[in-house]
């Protein structure tokens, strides 16, 4: 099943949407700057609608079925979020309007800042970062700014456990830090002894993913944080796995100094086929002045009758701007809607049931799939997707075979510290029936791996396309299509 591109579907002279004729006297376009050739496709509205409906049918989303992609928190995305984010009172506001005309937006952002602070135990919050990776970059930039503000320029090393998220090393390098890996111990915790040997006065900080990418909560977390603090370093927390901690523990209480949150994971905003997300950053008291600009503050207290006046303010020693304007506002509205619906009790239930679902699924699979660390997991877990008595079968084959059974595969080959890793995160929004059906299929695939491995090697069988030639794609590098006459 394939669909032609919009350029192939183009037919000269066709037009989808028309605009009113000009109602002002005509002036000439600037001489010497007029474009001769505008190579855009020409389609009718119906052509366009059918094209994109066809494309959508080649996709798998949470609305289609179970999507247990580890570390991505593919929970159900409530439809009400889509309605609130599209309220004309929000979508029709320009980012540079006078603040007095956008008090609704600013009040919402302020309340969102306050609520994430309460959930996480931090003293300050910026909603600027556009995604987890940018939030993480901001976190590292704040750590650098903090040390520099104290004249402490020798701290050039960033410690990163081998169970941390994949973006951590790149974010550190972008901020000029030297990356020092820290191994895990036999229980999947940060190896404390190893940590102590690398902690000295050149350490800027530690980037801690907790629960880590094995789905395990570090049993020595307080000791780990204390060790880094005693060496004068700061601890950055990777909030991608916050779904396991809502109402369970506050990262700020544990001693973490700075952390990003993913509204698109923990707070149910849709992943959009790869964005837009939102990665707010929270900080402890000593880092509040370094937050990226601007943050929303109350600039004039209200009274019983008059609401407070909100404004955009630059923190005193801000690391600066990391995007134009004020954050991915439409995503903030979605996340805030969800948080308001959960409320205090709902928040904790999310984490409880996310962890219950993961442990239940694990209990169904652990006799057949090797579990590298035999512990209670948090919101996700990692198993090995291979067997010594089925040597040709790999995690990738299992992932592809799952598509034949109409399930989205788990994350595979990550984390790197587990051989043939399958990283499974069911989330709290999945029912027992779905988990049972998924477990049953995974057990069946394990059996097929031993009896009819070719079924796995050839999978998937009935997706729009089969396994694609990635080497050809990288070698020939066809990245764009053009109108036929342009060739």
């Amino acid at each position, binding site marked *: 099943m*394939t669909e032609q591109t*919009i350029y192939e579907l183009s037919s000269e002279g066709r*037009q*989808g*949407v*028309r605009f009113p004729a000009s109602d002002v006297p005509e002036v000439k376009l600037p001489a010497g*700057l007029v*474009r001769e050739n505008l190579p855009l*496709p020409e389609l009718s509205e119906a052509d366009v609608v059918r094209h994109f409906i066809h494309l*959508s049918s080649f*996709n798998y989303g949470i609305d289609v079925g179970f999507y247990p992609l580890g570390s*991505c928190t593919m929970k159900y995305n409530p439809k*009400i979020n889509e309605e609130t984010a599209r*309220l004309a*009172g929000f*979508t029709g*506001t320009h980012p540079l*309007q006078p603040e007095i*005309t956008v008090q*609704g937006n600013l*009040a919402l952002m302020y309340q969102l800042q306050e609520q994430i602070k309460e959930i996480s135990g931090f003293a300050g919050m910026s909603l600027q970062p*556009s995604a987890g*990776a940018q939030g993480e970059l901001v976190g590292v930039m704040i750590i650098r700014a903090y040390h520099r503000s104290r004249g402490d320029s020798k701290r050039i090393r960033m410690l990163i456990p081998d169970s941390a998220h994949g*973006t951590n090393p*790149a974010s550190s*390098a972008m901020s000029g830090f030297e*990356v020092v890996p820290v191994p895990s111990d036999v229980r999947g915790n940060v190896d404390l002894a190893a940590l102590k040997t690398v902690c000295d006065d050149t350490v800027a900080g530690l980037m801690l993913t907790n629960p880590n990418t094995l789905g395990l909560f570090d049993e020595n977390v307080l000791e780990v944080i204390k060790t880094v603090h005693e060496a004068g370093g700061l601890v950055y927390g990777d909030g991608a796995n916050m779904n396991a901690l809502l*109402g369970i523990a506050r990262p700020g209480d544990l001693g973490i100094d700075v952390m990003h949150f993913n509204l698109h994971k923990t707070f149910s905003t*849709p*992943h*959009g*086929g790869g*964005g837009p997300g939102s990665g707010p950053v929270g900080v402890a008291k000593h880092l509040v002045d370094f937050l990226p600009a601007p943050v929303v503050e109350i600039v004039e207290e209200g009274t019983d009758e008059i609401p407070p006046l909100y404004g955009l303010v630059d923190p005193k020693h801000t690391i*600066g701007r*990391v*995007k*134009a304007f*004020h954050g*991915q*506002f*439409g995503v903030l509205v979605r996340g805030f809607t969800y948080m*308001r*619906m959960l*409320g205090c009790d709902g928040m904790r239930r999310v984490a409880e049931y996310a962890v*219950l679902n993961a442990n*239940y699924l694990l209990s169904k699979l652990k006799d057949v799939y090797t579990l590298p660390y035999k512990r*209670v997991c*948090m919101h996700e877990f990692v198993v090995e997707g291979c067997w010594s008595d089925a040597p040709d079968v790999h995690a990738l084959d299992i992932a592809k075979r799952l598509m034949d059974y109409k399930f989205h595969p788990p994350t595979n080959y*990550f984390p790197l510290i587990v051989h043939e890793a399958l990283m499974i995160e069911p989330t709290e*929004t999945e029912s027992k029936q779905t988990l049972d059906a998924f477990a049953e299929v995974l057990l069946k695939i394990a059996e097929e791996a031993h009896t009819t491995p070719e079924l796995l090697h050839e999978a998937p069988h009935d997706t*729009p396309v*089969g396994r*694609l*030639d*990635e080497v050809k794609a990288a070698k*020939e*590098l066809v*990245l*764009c299509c*053009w109108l036929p006459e342009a060739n």
Partner: protein
Amino acid sequence: MFIPHSTKEKEEMLKSIGISKIEDLFDAIPKEHRFPKLNLPEGLTEMEALAELQEYADANETVRELACFLGAGAYNHYTPAAVDNLLRRGEFYTAYTPYQPEVSQGTLQAIFEFQSLIANLTGMEVANASHYDGATATAEAGVMAYHNFRGKRSKILYSEAIHPQYHAVLCSYLCGYEDINIVSGSSKNDPFASPDALIPQIDDDTALVLVQYPDFFGRVYDLTNLAAKVHEHGALLGVITNPTALGVLKSPGEFGADIVVGEGQPLGIPLSFGGPYLGFFATRKEYARKIAGRLVGETVDEKGRKGYVLTLTAREQHIRREKATSNICSNQGLITLAATIYLSLVGKSGFKQVSNLCYQKAHYAAEKLAALPGFILVNKDPFFHEFVLKCPKAVSEINEALLDEGILGGYDLGRDFPVLKDHMLIAVTEMNTREEIDALVESLAEVAHD
């Protein structure tokens, strides 16, 4: 909320795990910090949540009621109905990044089409799958140029007429590179210097020369001469552009740009208080392997069927780790889809029409305003759909008066450029009727009198 478990199901699951209550799953959390009491409001039903959010929305004034003449990087355009209708397909918006291509061909082909549209529009050979916004795309252009010369060239020369917030983000992103110098082509006191004024400062230590077209003040210049001088020194020319202008005006590629970046918001994306928007990034094929961010490439499956995959992933953070030049992952997926649908719908003739309407109406407004006593049209050179008006009093004061007349006035340039106190940047698009423009002129005439 959104948790389907019945009590009976919960009990069965606990039994399967071998524990008696959910709390037992959290023994690894330090006891003194376990189960904190959160001071949050009670949860709401959907009905109540919608009502509450509506209250926040109602507390704003919007471009629906106000005649909008505010631009400065975000523009009020018409979005055809089909755009949002298609965006609401759950198969698109509830999917993750297309890591599993067999079940993500919809997303992948749409991104491939987006890359094609951006390359065609900017006059470049390749484009990536997006950046967070125009400002971060600009910063990534700086990072790419630096790495292109393996750190051997340290100077990034920029025009003062680029968006001040893009400049700010460029500085934040590059402050981790001790050896990069971000150098202004003129001075804060001379923001109107033309692109050719940068030429004397280009040298063999220059990695990137960065200009904007149309620039922050709406002006358009032929960049051919600048491009030639940049290339004489072996440096790269980066151009920040507004896609709407490219419907009628020459593309940066035609002038010889090496990197073209910009904000895709004008392509059918709502203003939405500044985000989510869409950064685009296009370049020449020889630099394809140096682009940060995701790229989709065409290939075939085992049966020879055409398909699409994320390609050149070996450049990226999850593989190269600390050696990657950027930590960017996926970012504005659904917004690239919106822009792709928008450009497909308006197509060649519709896009040209939008572009021309913006140009015509802006020039009508500029001519009328220039005739007003007390106001001076500062732009002497050609401009697209924004222009600078020197006002007889403070812009904030004028805008306050305009608001009373139902008009959202232009951007106060004094906020970024002290020498441009009392200067207003006015944007006009296809959304502004002649009546609205006449009303603006009339209101400004009154304001000047008061």
